[in-house]
């Protein structure tokens, strides 16, 4: 029974263990203890690392990478909306949702990698500012939750069986959760820009 559960829901269990660990660490004030220690790292990234120097010295490179970040986020948004609106039965009703979710996942992964790499570059140029922004840390948390949700819950579940065998309300819940998470990631990015 235990080994069956472990094999079938291995990724989900890992995610829950990670979440439990984060809660425990939060309860023992781990985050509060390490937060001041992160400042020198952020200052080093901003003033001494090559990405920080490149981003602050050459505004044109920084703006171009920002555009790349926006384009990768747009691609993520397009894939998320197409697949999740299909799960909600709003678009692509004549295309099997299995085909759509599997066929777009590679592009999603590629766009996510580009978004993360360009995001690191953009954050490096203003690392000493984002360190003090609550919205930056909130975005990082939502991004981590979103990535965990996609790779440990949504995709394994959608790939595990034909979607007709999954409770339709569970599919709708997955789709709405996914749209909300990625919209929050994008919106908090804009919020950082305003702060």
């Amino acid at each position, binding site marked *: 029974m235990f080994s069956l559960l472990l094999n079938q829901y291995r990724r989900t269990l890992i995610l829950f263990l990670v979440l439990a660990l984060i809660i425990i660490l939060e309860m023992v004030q781990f985050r509060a203890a390490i937060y001041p220690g992160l400042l020198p790292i952020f200052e080093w990234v901003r003033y001494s690392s090559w990405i920080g120097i490149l981003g602050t010295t050459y505004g044109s490179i920084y703006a*171009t990478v*920002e*555009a790349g970040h926006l384009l990768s986020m747009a691609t993520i*948004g*397009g894939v998320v909306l197409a697949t999740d609106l299909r799960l909600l039965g709003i678009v692509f009703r004549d295309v099997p949702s299995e085909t759509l979710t599997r066929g777009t996942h590679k592009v999603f992964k590629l766009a996510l990698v580009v978004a993360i790499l360009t995001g690191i570059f953009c954050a490096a140029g203003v690392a000493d500012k984002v360190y003090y922004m609550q919205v930056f840390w909130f975005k990082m948390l939502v991004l981590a939750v979103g990535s965990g949700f996609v790779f440990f819950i949504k995709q394994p579940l959608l790939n595990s069986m034909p979607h007709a065998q999954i409770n339709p309300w569970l599919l709708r819940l997955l789709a709405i959760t996914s749209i909300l998470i990625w919209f929050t990631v994008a919106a908090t990015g804009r919020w950082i820009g305003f702060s």
Partner: protein
Amino acid sequence: MINELLLQFAQWLYAQSYSQMLLAGYYSYNWVEATHVLTLMLSIGSLFIIDFRMLGLILPNVPASTIANRLHKPMIIGFAIMFITGFLLVYAKPVETVQSLWFRIKMILLVCAFINAWIFNARLKAAEGSWDMDPVAPKNLRTGAIISLVLWCGVVTMGRYIPYDWVDCVNVENPTILWAAGCVEQLQAL
């Protein structure tokens, strides 16, 4: 002549109280800008999926016409929101925007992107049924998809450049750039 007319029009827009109210309201301007940027996910996101399908990079086992037809409506809704919010952003800062070189390049790229979309749609309709299930579109549609991707990447990049002041009228002395950016007063002062 065209630069003078555009500047006069921008100054007339700026003289309106709603223009200044939109810019002065911290949340109003930011909400409009945030909506403009976030709608990229709907408009450009849908467009990229269609273009990627034409190039055979995504969903090769789904008919290309199905992808294009089903994403057409969300994409148009996205672009409609982007144009309304884009107009409001220009309305809030008309003089600054009209004299931005990046904004002008962006508008030229936008026109090119729409001409390309119009030709692409005509070709798509003309070829309907003949290749729908092929994993890759015919060469003329692939070319249209690549041009579309390049033009829209350019539009987004130019949009990102607009807030930067590298080629603002007060920072440039080159007459060609001043003319291209529409810096009327600086050109007259030369």
